[in-house]
């Protein structure tokens, strides 16, 4: 794989300077069944097309999100996750909307 990915903080970088941490998954809400849990842990959509991914920039050490076409390797957009919210007000882990396998 040889592509350029635009880190929202550092700009376009060689893919070797970044780490792709896989597609964005949804962490189950509280107390999942064995099936839900196993799907979350082991199953991936493995989209042949545009998928949302977590990326880590080894240069600025920021995590960011990307939409990449897995067929053409075209990266449609990249963006930083939302900034932290005030103490105590953050979503509980079970409610986390986007959880992947880092």
């Amino acid at each position: 794989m040889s592509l350029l990915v635009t880190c929202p903080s550092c700009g376009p970088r060689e893919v070797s300077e970044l780490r792709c941490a896989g597609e964005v998954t949804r962490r189950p809400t509280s107390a999942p069944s064995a099936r839900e849990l196993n799907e979350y842990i082991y199953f991936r959509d493995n989209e042949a097309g545009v998928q949302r991914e977590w990326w880590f920039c080894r240069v600025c050490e920021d995590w960011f999100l990307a939409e990449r076409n897995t067929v053409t390797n075209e990266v449609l957009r990249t963006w930083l996750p939302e900034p932290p919210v005030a103490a105590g007000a953050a979503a509980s882990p079970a409610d986390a909307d986007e959880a992947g396998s880092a």
Partner: protein
Amino acid sequence: MSRLPPHPHERIDRTRELAFTFEGRRVSAFPGDTFGSALYAAGQRVFSRSFKYHRPRGLQCCSGHCANCQMTVDGVPNVRVCVEPVREGAVVQGQNYLGSLERDLLQVTDKLGGPFTPPGFYYKTFIRPRRLWPLYEKLLRHAAGLGRLDEHGARGERVEVEHRHVDTIVIGGGEAGLEAAAEAAQRGESVLLVDEGPEVGGSLLSRRGGAATARELAAQAAAAGVELLAPATAIGIFEYNLVPVATANLLLKVRARRVVVASGVTEQPLVFPGNDLVGVMLPEGVRRLVNYWSLKPGERAVVLTADERGLDAAAELEAAGVELAHVVDLRTQQPPNIEAAGRRGRVQQVGINGRWIACDLVVMSGSPQPSYKLLAQAGARVAYDAGRGVFVPRDLPPRVEAVGACAGDVGEPAVPAPQLGYRGDKCFVCFCEDQTTKDLKHAIAEGFDSIELSKRYTTVTMGPCQGRLCQLGSIRVYAKANGVDEATIGTTTARPPYAPVPLGVLAGRPQEPVKRTSLHHRHEDLGGKMMWTGAWKRPHSYSDDPGEEAQHVHRALGLIDVSTLGKLLVEGPDAGAFLDRLYPNRFSDLKPGRIRYGVLTTDAGRIMDDGTVARLDEQTYYVTTTSTGADGVYQWFTWWNAVWRLDVEVANVTGALAAVNVAGPNAREAMQRVSPDDYANDAFAYLDAKHVRVAGVPTLALRIGFVGELGYELHFPSAYGEHVWDALLERAADLGARPFGLEPQRILRLEKGHVIVSQDTDSESNLLEAAMPWIFKQEKEDFVGKWGTQQVAERGLRWLLVGFESPTGVMPLEGGQVVVDGRSAGRVTSVRRSAELGKVIGLAVVPHELAVDGGRFDVRVDGRLVPMTVHLGPFFDPEGARLKA
């Protein structure tokens, strides 16, 4: 052999002379010569022996395309000497012959011919008796092939890899490439132009007066800001316009917004009997001999041409004083039968419809083929131009352009090259692999009727020229034999590399990054035997007796450098909540100044890493990780917080801080000598974390006991590493202060039954089966790994990590197989001989039902089963009295 009279644009500098040896003879040359031209000037005509038939071969393209001039230069095989500049003192040797280049005994394969040598002949002929194949194979490998690699040779020169980013890369420095580059540079783009020749100029260079034009264009491009690089070969065009360029001992990884391919054309041979004889050349080869090096290619020439190039060459030859015996312009006349014949592999006459014309040079020129390979590799479609009989690139991918002749605009009228002569003789289609029209027809008759299958069966296009001179010809033979047109046959897939690249260049610079702690040189001075642990170098031990080193820690005092531990600062109003979500146990209720052990698990409940967590104040935690886990844990933490968005910051201070563990019964006294702070047991209790000063250096001291003795783990700025270390060793010398290495540490921690993550656990281990159920706080609302661990609890434990002793004293290997009732049932994860306990002790994963004190199992040692006894809990100081003293 004398040169032609000097002319103003020749490349050679006749005022100086160089010399090299060829097959033991001294050969002189001028600067500007290649090995090939110098040998030609010295009268050499046979440059190689062909792959299969060992036929003599001579200069054909002089452009580095064909394999005819491959020789071994200074031990490097398969160097195309026609383009390799001469070097003083070089040693040049021919290849692939038995005897000499002029008289190769293996040419017998050519004489035998017949049923002996069709494609795949070696598999067919030599398959019986089967048991002799290994012998046959050895002989065949010896007889067929290219140069020899020096098996013991090592790369002498260092290869570097460089990343470059440009607006535009232009591949090919001919007229079109130079103009395109200059134009782009004038628009303000950063432009790199690469050319595989020794200098830019392309086909201009070999035209009379063309060199001056080339230099002018190059100067204009350079003035516009173009960076010109030659010789430099673009290996391929990869995703996102990544163009690796091999140049000398450098691999440039060029990333370009735009790739402009200006690779020109490749002249094509004609297919007729005797077309591989020495003296049968392509027009460019002839032009280079005359115009580069002022060499006369022959005395009497016959020209066979399907385009303008042959006629141009004819004019050059006449100007050089070569007699033109006959010219056949295939555009106006196509004689049904042309063949060349010669003696000892050298052309002596050409027969045209049975009329023989004496000559010592034949110029053949098929319709030139646009060099589309890089474009096709980048994703362009390849279409057949029936008018000229060549393939041209179409539908270029975005941000890839083609200019000049490679785009298909050859500019000169040409006709498809006919096949001349059908006498069943050897009309070579593929010179590199010695494949003739007959071989191809043979392959078709055997059912290999697609060009891709044919390629694999006959190996046409798979030789050193990589299809440059044979692909078109073989497609033509296939089309004709199958009664279809060339477009139907199609081309084979173009793959990188575009040209042969030394593996050394691809391997790049050997990298062996090493991390050293700030105490590295102290370890070396103290006789530490350094070993690799991940990317770190750490002392294994300082003596030949690690057991004694370990015992000394029990008796007196030891110092170990633990700077390699990962160190993270977790700070913010949500820091406690954040750690509660990441760890199976709770940290929000940890009191400031206290320490708790933590194990990280994934959501699948697998153990990832472990370490200590100290709470420094209300909002600040200091987390240590394993030495190899530092980066992974840092990314794990920051990623989860990218998801959770808690008000917390994570800083990786691994490299900023050194860490030294001071352990042993004398540790307290030692600390008191270097620090004004209070180390009394009630003031600084087990699992306390305190800010102290050690030898004047602000230090975070953690009272923990990985090695089972009273101990203080000191974390302080790396810059003071040696200062603190020296102070401890000096001022506590009479207390027995001595450094100890990793190996004694492993013995000490094993005596305590402490687990090393990734030594005693693997990617399948979970908290419950790694015997750490106490760390799993089920009542916590949620944390990473909770559900996965619960799943294990629900299904029931299958394995357990337990301590064991070896009653016989036999020491199993780490990784040794646990055997229960004759079946494999677990493995040994750690084992050491403890001098302190006088026992062999270890940790092993065993079936859960065996995990009781005194439980017995066997371990396979050297094929024998050796009994072991389960020991639950620490082997040494089970109550931890020494830790807490």
